[in-house]
């Protein structure tokens, strides 16, 4: 098996309407790239259920996935932290093995 190294996998759950701000922060943090997946539906005790079939798009959420080194992950976490409270974003950071880790 090729050599692997440990990197961070960041997952940010954010309002689709606010993605431009998240992307901007990722770009500023020096992370090499990101990928966005649409959330189809969701729910929480705080605000009830929603579904992407609601054509207003007002509740639509997306998940932004970014692979990054520990330092860049930390930089992004610091920057995005205020939005976690004010906008109800969720951020998780997990450890993953990657091949050719020098890219991140």
């Amino acid at each position, binding site marked *: 098996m090729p050599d692997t190294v440990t990197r961070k996998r960041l997952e940010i759950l954010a*309002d689709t*309407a*606010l993605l*431009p*701000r998240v*992307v*901007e922060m990722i770009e500023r943090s020096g992370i090499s790239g990101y990928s966005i997946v649409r959330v189809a539906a969701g729910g929480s005790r705080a*605000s*009830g*259920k929603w*579904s*992407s*079939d*609601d*054509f*207003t*798009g*007002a*509740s639509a959420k997306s998940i932004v996935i970014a692979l990054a080194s520990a330092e860049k992950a930390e930089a992004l976490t610091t920057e995005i932290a205020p939005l976690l409270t*004010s*906008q109800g974003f969720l951020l998780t950071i997990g450890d993953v093995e990657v091949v050719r880790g020098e890219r991140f």
Partner: protein
Amino acid sequence: MESTAMQTLTSPVVLFFVLGFLAAVVRSDLSIPEQFAKAMSIYLMIAIGLKGGVEIAQTGLDAQVLSAAAAGIGLSFLIPFAVFAVLRAVSTDAINAGAIAAHYGSVSVVTFVTAVELYRSSGLDSDGFMVGVMALMETPAIITGLLLARRFGGSDTANTAATSRPGGGLAHEVLTNASVILLLGAFAVGWIIGPAAYEPVSPLFTGLFKGVLCVFLLDMGLVAARRLFETRALTAKLVAVAIGFPIVNGAIGVAIGTLVGLNVANSAVLGVLAASASYIAVPAAMRLSLPEANPGVSLAMSLGVTFPFNIVVGIPLFAAMANMLG
């Protein structure tokens, strides 16, 4: 007028709205696929823009046009002040009051389209340029709503968030908004091509129009009812003002329309525009510029209460008012 009320309640457009609403009430799993709903709303905006433009190409610019445009822009700028004051009086915080005020100052494309169709069926023909007026009314309210939220909300987020966006700030957002581009762009295309070149595309944009509107209103019914019942933030007071706003704003719209010299049909439509509240363009702008506001409240009001009220009661009401004043 009575005929308009009757026509309204037995029109397929309204009945499909009611069907969707009832389906959601009985918790049916019926849903319209998201991208199909977006496609229908794009279709509706292109169709009305195009037809408005083609009409201008035929009739030329009317003396009423400038008055109507000025009245529309004025209403969109000013309605939020009144709405904001009322909301503050029923103890909504300033941030949410500003956001909701922006919704009510702006307009609902589908309410407009439904009104124009229903009025036409009962012989009340409004002019093509009213589409342009609607497009102009979409965004000024966003500015007023943000100013109010920022001034009284003790937060400068509105400011920063908007200006820190890539592509450059609120002005850009307001002018390049998808629905503004579609409505005014299609309007311009219609104006350039005129009736002869419109002919070959009319089976799509005129022929299918009312049928597509039915299907879209089915979806509106589903979404409106779900908004109404699943939102936990709606209080009785907020429901009451969400019915009061369209009545008062609509009456003001009809009155100003009559005052600036619009004919009966155009005055009624201006009333509908003033009475209606945005549920697509403004919520998106508010998420970006005023993220502390709760989109659940404003949407439950505009989509869950005001929209159904206008479709069933408001549209015939404003026609009656315009007939009385005109």
